[in-house]
């Protein structure tokens, strides 16, 4: 792992970590600390539009956002010093992702020696009305 990546993990510096990931910058992921926890933000961005008629965020972008959130969550909370590899990723789309800011929070459901299971929820206006839920398995070593 590069020094930059390792440093940002050690310092719990989300912004620095996100800045090292070009894809995260492309879709515009940000991290908002709330007390000891943090949530992820995908700001409204014209380049993320999928359905031009609604308009709605591309389902793939919502997936990519939630996947990235899961990876960063494991890097920051899990006992690992590598970039986790995605084994599988499953997303349920519950509501259209409107062309506005989206948020995601993650839960490390289980971390074993090799594999972590993470559940991710994404919402826009109200956390009780998620636009998508996802779960992923990550390989840690």
């Amino acid at each position, binding site marked *: *792992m*590069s020094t*930059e*990546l390792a440093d940002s993990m050690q310092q719990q510096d989300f912004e620095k970590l996100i800045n*090292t*990931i*070009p*894809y*995260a*910058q*492309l*879709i515009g992921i940000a991290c908002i600390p709330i007390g000891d926890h943090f949530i992820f933000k995908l700001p409204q961005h*014209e*380049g*993320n*539009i*999928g*359905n*031009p008629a609604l308009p709605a965020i*591309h*389902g*793939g*972008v919502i*997936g*990519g*956002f939630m*996947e*990235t959130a899961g990876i960063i969550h494991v890097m920051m909370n899990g006992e690992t010093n590598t*970039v986790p*590899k*995605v*084994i*599988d*990723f*499953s*997303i*349920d*789309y519950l509501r*259209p992702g409107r062309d506005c800011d989206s948020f995601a929070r993650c839960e490390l459901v289980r971390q074993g020696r090799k594999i972590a299971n993470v559940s991710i929820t994404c919402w826009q206006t109200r956390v009780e009305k998620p636009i998508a839920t996802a779960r992923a398995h990550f390989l840690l070593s």
Partner: protein
Amino acid sequence: MPHSNTKADEIIQYMLKAVRHCQVLNIQLISTDNGMLTLELPYSNSIVGNPDTGVIHGGALTTLMDTCCGFVMPICQEGSFFGPTLDLRIDYMTAAQPGKSVFSRSEIYRVTDNVIFSKGIAYQDDIAKPIAHCVATFMRMDTDASKSKTKGTPDEH
């Protein structure tokens, strides 16, 4: 790869142009043969997920496969369908090799009155060695479906 400019090709080209994020990722049409759709995601530094290795981010692959599984609906052999994604699952077999395009090939394997089932693979050099598998379900929104509910047609939902 040259291919004839069929109606299916025109539909896909139109949709790729209309979907802003597909333009951002520069997703290209490769072919629309026998109701199967093949798309290309060219390698670009902006979609890298691991800066140490140059491997593209899973999110870009998710968008490629979501697009491919969804866009095959209007051109599949059972007819022309359209609808929002209900769910999508991707299994990653191996990391994509940096510096190379990723291709995605998808098909519709079942259409019911209300639901469309789609599956696909992503590959690089060898189609027989996919880097990812994907399944997706879509809610059927086309008017024909809701109007012509035939008795005895299996319907999972």
